[in-house]
């Protein structure tokens, strides 16, 4: 098998207004089976995808936000949230779902998947990737 690649899934759109957030998540879940080095980036309105307390009953559409909590089980442990995007939207990490994974190299200790990074830091991360996915 060829060496693994570093995949970054870039999410810049809010949930529910369009389908991109949901369908990009589906790519991540299917992609997990291919055991590449996966990271997710949430920039601009993409940060809204991770907002806690989503309740879609009044809309009659499926609430897919619980799926983000399952990402840890799919070996997605690096979820980058851009600090500037969060701040310009008046949000803090407390407004986002608490996403975690169990570190098999550390006695299955529960760790945070979300990393708050500045645009400059995320740019550096983006430049280190092999493949960038956009939706």
């Amino acid at each position, binding site marked *: 098998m060829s060496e693994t690649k570093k995949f970054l899934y*870039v999410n*810049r759109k809010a949930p529910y207004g369009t389908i991109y957030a949901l369908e990009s998540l589906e790519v991540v879940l299917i992609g997990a089976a291919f055991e590449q080095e996966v990271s997710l980036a949430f*920039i*601009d309105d993409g940060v809204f995808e991770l907002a806690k307390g989503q309740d879609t009953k009044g809309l009659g559409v499926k609430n897919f936000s619980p799926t983000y909590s399952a990402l840890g089980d799919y070996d997605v442990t690096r979820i980058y949230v851009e600090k*500037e995007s969060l701040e310009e939207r008046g949000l803090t990490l407390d407004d986002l779902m608490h996403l975690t994974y169990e570190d098999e190299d550390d006695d299955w200790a529960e760790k945070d998947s979300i990393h708050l990074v500045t*645009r400059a830091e*995320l*740019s550096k991360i*983006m*430049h*280190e*990737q*092999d*493949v*960038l996915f*956009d*939706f």
Partner: protein
Amino acid sequence: MSILHVVNKSPYEKNSLEVCIGYYQDGDAILLIEDGVYAAMATGKFASALAGKDLNVLRADLSARGIADDKVVDGAKLVDYGGFVDLVGSHGKVQSWL
């Protein structure tokens, strides 16, 4: 590894170009296509933000929109789809700022 940043939306409509510029590093290139070419108008307010960047613009999209070569910001390289392909090859990966 360098990035080819492709921006296809008008900067007057979306913030994609602005965000793109925030992620741009030396060695990268920007390619404006589709409505993204409006950013390259010399008289537009985004011309200065593009200064100093390796800026490429798809000529076919400029022509379609009635933007003549001499209306494009100085320093921009006008490319055809073949040039687009070459840019993809000469940078390690592509980031489409949709």
